[in-house]
């Protein structure tokens, strides 16, 4: 088995929302990211997947729980002490329109992280490195002095990837990197991410609400519901043999681009994701779950292993 790159133990994060109100964004989540893998994180909006992604690279500090990078506890390090890890842990954002400074040209955008980490000594060297990064992500070098608004969404996302790559990280958290793109462009970016992973041995935490995308790119998948993990396991395993009812409903909701396979008959989940301010007692899914009983309302199920790292948190599948 590969080495564990990042490990979160019992991470909990709450946000205050107005007086005496708390949003339970992530509740007691333990998760490991292995070196060189792509871990997919899926769930509906507001389930805490972005918060968890940020906790795992310490862009947010957990209220409780520990964070380990290469086995070293980094939870209580000061920001300065954490600096040497920061370079290894980078992030790509969802919106390629909002995540690039509109007043910086491509050269300056990609040079920014290189300057931060003092990678280059001279200006010429810096420009040279920027050009290398641009070539790696497929943005033509002649666009060096263009500004973000002159690019299409796909090209902008490539620039975002180049910025993340500039620091030569080990892990990139990709937070919905293709949700804002049309399908053919989305595929180009997914191909690029795959190819970069192969050539550089990168590790990805890939956050998305789109199961088809996650299925394609991930080695392992983690399904989240309202701040907790419902199911985690190898991608093939989870998709072929989903153990948690929520995972099954998510798959029923996939819309295949094929009129012969309409899902008119598939059982759909009723209702919507409950509020994270007042999460349901017991199993957080019980208000929407057709199999819920007294125990589910009372007791939060723990993740249980069904072999080969395939785990689900449900009282019923395991019985």
């Amino acid at each position, binding site marked *: 088995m590969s080495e564990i790159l990042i490990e979160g133990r019992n991470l909990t994060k709450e946000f205050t929302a107005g007086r005496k109100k708390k949003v339970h964004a992530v509740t007691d989540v333990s998760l490991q990211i292995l070196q060189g893998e792509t871990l997919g994180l899926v769930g509906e909006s507001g389930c805490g997947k972005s918060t968890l992604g940020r906790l795992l690279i310490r862009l947010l500090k957990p209220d409780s729980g520990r964070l380990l990078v290469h086995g070293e506890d980094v939870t209580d390090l000061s920001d300065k002490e954490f600096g040497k890890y920061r370079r290894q842990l980078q992030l790509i954002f969802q919106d390629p329109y909002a995540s690039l400074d509109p007043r910086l040209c491509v050269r300056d955008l990609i040079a920014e992280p290189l300057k931060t980490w003092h990678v280059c000594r001279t200006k010429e060297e810096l420009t040279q490195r920027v050009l290398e990064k641009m070539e790696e992500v497929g943005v033509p070098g002649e666009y060096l002095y263009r500004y973000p608004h002159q690019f299409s969404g796909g090209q902008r996302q490539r620039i975002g990837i180049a910025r993340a790559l500039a620091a030569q990280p080990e892990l990139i958290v990709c937070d919905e990197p293709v949700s804002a793109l049309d*399908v*053919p462009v989305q*595929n180009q970016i997914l191909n690029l991410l795959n190819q970069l992973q192969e050539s550089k041995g990168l590790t990805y935490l890939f956050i998305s609400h789109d*199961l088809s995308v996650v299925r394609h790119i991930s080695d392992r998948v983690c399904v989240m519901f309202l701040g907790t993990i419902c199911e985690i396991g190898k991608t093939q395993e989870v998709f072929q043999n989903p153990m948690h009812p929520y995972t099954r409903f998510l798959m029923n909701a996939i*819309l295949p*681009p094929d009129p012969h396979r309409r899902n008119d008959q598939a059982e759909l989940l009723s209702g*919507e994701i409950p509020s994270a301010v007042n999460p349901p007692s017991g199993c957080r899914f019980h208000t929407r779950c057709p199999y819920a009983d007294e125990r589910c309302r009372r007791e939060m199920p723990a993740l249980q292993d069904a072999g080969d790292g395939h785990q689900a948190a449900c009282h019923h599948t395991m019985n």
Partner: protein
Amino acid sequence: MSGKTLEIRHLNTSFFTQKGEVGAAKDICLEVRPGQIVGIVGESGCGKSVTARSVMGLVKYPGRVVSGEILLNGTRITGISKKEACSLRGSEVSMIFQEPMTSLNPVIKVGRQVEEVLLIHKKITKKEAKKEAAKILEAVGISDVASRMECYPHQLSGGLRQRVMIAMAMICSPSLLIADEPTTALDVTVEAQILRLMKKLCEAGTSILLISHNLGVIAQVCDYVYVMYAGRIVEQGETFTLFDHPAHPYTRGLLGAAKSLRSDAGLLKTIPGVVPNLLHLPAGCSFSPRCDSCMDLCRSEMPDMLPAGEKGHLTRCWRS
């Protein structure tokens, strides 16, 4: 069935920008028959929303409908006065938008927003309007209607807001509902619910023009599909025909890209090149620079819609 709910004939809608005229929708011919769900699919910027907005008379400055005719139930609605257009919108034809939050008024309770539509279009008392509103909100699948009607939009979830939008659109039983990316902002489980609701509405007699970039959504609910590229319709046909035998290289590319994501292929299919700038369209067929079966003719002349095999299946490609 006879008659057409919506007929668009040679519609041209342009935006007059400082850099010149941008033809956002060009020579659009489109039909929606009673009881049909018709889809328009294409990438962002291909003109699908502009086409829909042209029907509603909602194209914003500096854009306007340049030429062409739009007929609703056989009556011409292009060139009618603002007042006449207002009386049609909401009663004969309604539209729902992608982002339900920005389309609802944030400072008015949702119940009143639904009632308002009735009060404008029908001679009806406030009390009756309230009753009707409650009925339709229940019909679109909202539980606990009485208390939800007293809510402001921000107190509702995305799925509920979209249901409120649909209720507002449907309350006067329009003959045509235009849905512009109605599920794009919603979660997958809610998306499936809303699509089922739209199918139900259609079975109840409303024709729907559904605009989406998502081929999955289109394949699920549409009877007939139009594919748009760079402001023009490039292919049209019955859903099954079009998905089984796509005739235009662009449709093939789009479908291939969507399907390869669901297969176990290592490398995903894409379409080479980028969508052209509408200000600087290539000569001839707009897709020719990206097409793998491009001929000399394609680079010099734009093809008309030509028959492609089965009846009603047309494509804008010289190769067909």
